[in-house]
């Protein structure tokens, strides 16, 4: 195939079609055939992973810019277009979604109750996530945002555990409160531009908006998307929701969904309102730093393993926020890399804890112990996730956090040192959790439990290898992100 024809094939739409095809295939299968439903899910999510990885590799980094562009008019009278493209910002996110989706499906292999509905809703959710990451049309960004949120209510409330109905309701209301700020902001920008288009690339031309308009809209967008990114003080839905959700959903949720928030701030807020971004950056930095410190300190007091991860997510997403707030190339690089690294890391974390919980039926740190002897493989996955979480070199998170902190020290020395201090404290604590769960005398009640069987080991191995790969070769990711960030900064007025 000639290179041009290859580039014109709508790969991004094909990716969405894989999700929708999987959804339809599941809906057409009788609910009793759970094995077949699981295989359909595995095949289609595997296809999604292959496609997203393929796009990541096929992207021409020397050319940069938007590639795999698909653009068709959708509602011409309103200026809505079906506009998807890949660049250095969204390719890492698409890859992350592919990885987490596939591994989450495999992680849920042992699910027994209402299997058909579970996988159908998961496919719907992931369709929204993929759509949001690839879209460059504000209307579709908003639509995909909501599509990725509303299946969460049922996914948590039906299949969840601890206080599931409360967690599900809280999460849904918080996140849709976010969308209540986003929609007016989007409409406001589109109307003020007077171009009668929802095309992001057309609206981001310098001079489209006045500084006042940018400041107003950016604040709404930052708060709206920020709720989903777990920005302090709007983060309270996140630990509760993570704890209540079933394992696979926690993985997708903490791994991918929270990134939608940060990505939305970047793609919509920062792209359209750079002046608003610069104006509000000090506020963003303050909230992000509070989030980092607060998440780390509250995490210290938790006795439930999933709450520990939940608060560490708040803390790690704070690092993304701090990176965005530096308004520098390095900060942006680090923020995007951290989104990817944290997504994979937290998916592994939830996946490992999920297995331990399924077998032991407890998430309390005090009741576990000596897991490295009773379930050595499960404990190993847990330990790798913990090490990634505290930023050990040669694992993906290390590079991301390093880049953010270097940028932050230059711009906000105080916040930077506070954040690093908080991370050191949390590292100590996470190590103590590891010590108390994986080492020490085993709980006699748990010694007979089986270790992870090979099939269930596959998703965890994939996640570990991704973490190690990008920890050893961070340039693969950084070079990709740089094709977008450098160009973006050069385009700023």
């Amino acid at each position: 195939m000639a290179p041009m024809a290859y580039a014109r094939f709508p790969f991004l739409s094909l990716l969405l079609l894989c999700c929708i095809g999987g959804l339809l295939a599941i809906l057409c299968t009788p609910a009793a055939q759970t094995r077949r439903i699981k295989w359909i899910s595995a095949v289609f999510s595997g296809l999604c992973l292959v496609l997203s990885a393929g796009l990541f590799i096929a992207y021409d980094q020397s050319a940069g810019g938007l590639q795999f562009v698909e653009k068709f008019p959708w509602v011409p009278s309103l200026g809505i277009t079906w506009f998807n493209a890949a660049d250095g910002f969204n390719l890492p996110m698409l890859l992350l979604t592919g990885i987490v989706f596939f591994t989450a499906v495999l992680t849920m292999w042992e699910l027994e109750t209402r299997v058909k509905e579970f996988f159908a809703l998961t496919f719907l959710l992931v369709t929204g996530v993929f759509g949001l990451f690839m879209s460059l049309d504000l209307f579709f960004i908003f639509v995909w945002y909501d599509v990725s949120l509303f299946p969460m209510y049922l996914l948590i409330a039906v299949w969840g555990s601890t206080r599931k109905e409360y967690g599900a309701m809280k999460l849904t209301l918080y996140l849709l409160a976010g969308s209540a700020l986003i929609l007016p902001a989007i409409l406001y920008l589109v109307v003020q531009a007077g171009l009668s288009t929802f095309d992001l690339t057309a609206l981001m031309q310098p001079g489209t908006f006045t500084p006042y308009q940018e400041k107003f809209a950016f604040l709404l967008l930052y708060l709206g998307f920020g709720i989903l990114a777990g920005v302090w003080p709007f983060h309270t839905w996140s630990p509760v929701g993570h704890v209540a959700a079933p394992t696979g959903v926690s993985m997708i949720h903490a791994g991918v969904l929270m990134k939608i928030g940060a990505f939305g701030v970047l793609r919509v807020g920062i792209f359209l309102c750079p002046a608003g971004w610069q104006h509000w950056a000090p506020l963003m930095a303050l909230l992000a730093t509070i989030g980092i410190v607060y998440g780390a300190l509250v995490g210290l007091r938790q006795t439930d393993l999933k709450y520990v991860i939940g608060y560490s997510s708040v803390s790690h997403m704070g690092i993304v926020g701090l990176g965005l707030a530096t308004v520098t190339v390095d900060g942006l690089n680090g923020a995007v890399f951290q989104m990817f690294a944290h997504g994979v890391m937290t998916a592994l974390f939830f996946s490992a804890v999920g297995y331990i919980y399924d077998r032991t039926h407890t998430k309390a740190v005090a009741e576990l112990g000596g897991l490295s002897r009773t379930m050595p493989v499960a404990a190993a996955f847990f330990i790798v996730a913990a090490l990634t979480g505290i930023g050990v070199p040669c694992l993906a998170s290390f590079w991301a956090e390093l880049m953010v902190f270097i940028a932050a020290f230059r711009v906000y020395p105080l916040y930077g040192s506070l954040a690093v201090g908080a991370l050191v404290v949390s590292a100590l604590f996470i190590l103590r959790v590891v010590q108390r769960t994986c080492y020490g005398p085993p709980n006699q009640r748990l010694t007979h439990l089986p270790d992870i069987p090979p099939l269930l080991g596959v998703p965890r191995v994939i996640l570990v290898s991704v973490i190690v790969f990008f920890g050893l070769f961070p340039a693969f990711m950084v070079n990709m992100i740089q094709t977008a960030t450098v160009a973006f900064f050069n385009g700023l007025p």
Partner: protein
Amino acid sequence: MNWTLLSPELFFLTAALVFLGISMSGRPDPERDYITAVVLGAVGLGICLACVPLRGDLFLGAYRVDLFSQTFKTLLAMGFFLIVCICNDLTGVAERHHPEFYLLLTASTLALMLLVSCVHLLPLYVALELSSYSLYVLVYLRVDLRQGIRAGLTYFLIGAAASAVMIFGLALLYGAAQSAYLADLMTALPGMLHQPMVAIGVLLALAGFFFKLAVFPFHFWAPDVYQGAPHQAAAYIATVSKVAAVAVLIRVAALTGGAGSFLTDALVALAIVSMTVGNLSALVQKDFKRLMAYSSIAQAGYVLIGILSMSSAGYGGAIFYALALLVMKVTCFLVLVAAAGGGRNMEIAGLAGLHRRSPILALALMMAVFSLAGIPPTIGFTGKFLVFKAAIAQGHVSLVLIAMINVVISLYFYLMVVRAAYLTEPQGPQPALLAPPLTRGLAYFLVALTVLAGIYPTPLIAWADAAARGLM
């Protein structure tokens, strides 16, 4: 005179006469009545669709057939057809009254069709009253007389008061403009809106339609009437009669030509209060139909946002929203009729285990309430998107923010419906719910329409915009 212009109206007149004849036969046969009604409804919908391209003026210019009126007639016929389709379980009405029930339903639809075509104040008022009086009786027809009488009386008294207010407003307008033709009013009013008489006249004239649409402060009837009326009558009041109210509100609002800040401010206030009152009251409801009633009050507020934008985009959005309301509300009532059974009222908790008893009905209900909450990709989201965009284009940013906060509040009780249908398990065994094929087919159709109009609304938006532009 070109009688083909009147084909939809003539057809529904004939249908009414058919039911009049059946009602005099004196032998109750629900099966026969139901099939007749469904067939007539389908033919009526077909005729309305065929008549969409017609244009013309009748009766000395008092009656106009244009794209706007024909669009709404199609919506009305579609609503009528959908409502008679869910009359398969019309146990809320005594069997011997079934022909009268259909007769009044048809007569009311005929009146609403006349209403959307009237461009003169006098026939406008007469058509409105004709439809109202059919509905007053329709509400009484409940088998359980106590409920029916209470609902009917509430509806009648508030309706009569609203009519009185409205005709006073019409008189003021006539006095100010010296003409009862809408076309004359349209040229005269924009320059006179600063006069208190004219501004108040417009507002009072709108009151009659606020009553139909259940906009604050004419909303008090809605919960009692929904609860007391037979399900199908409540469904008709919640959908078809609101569609017509939207049509006339748009026609009257278009008279002012977009001028008049007093009028806009008043409508903004009414929209905000309607949304807020409706959504906050809905939070504590236990009965499914009362919940629907309060949700209708809130939805009326959203429709008003499109109308108060006073632009062709806003009117187009309101027209689209009318279609959305029709689809969403009919779906809810379809599930209610099937799930409650025997024409009884149902608590929200009565939906327990619906996902197991009938997956398709549970899915339809979930899509309908998500659509009412305005979550994409559904028809309800597209409607909200259009009216909000029109409002922001006119500078009502804070109004849209308040509306979006209302959307979040409303999500709570809509999610409670989803929770009841999908999460809670019924006490005691509940048999599988085998809805008749027509109901199931309708449920699939409505779900498909809800989603399709959310994903690819382009042709419908184009149609609504064209209809709205014809008014300006």
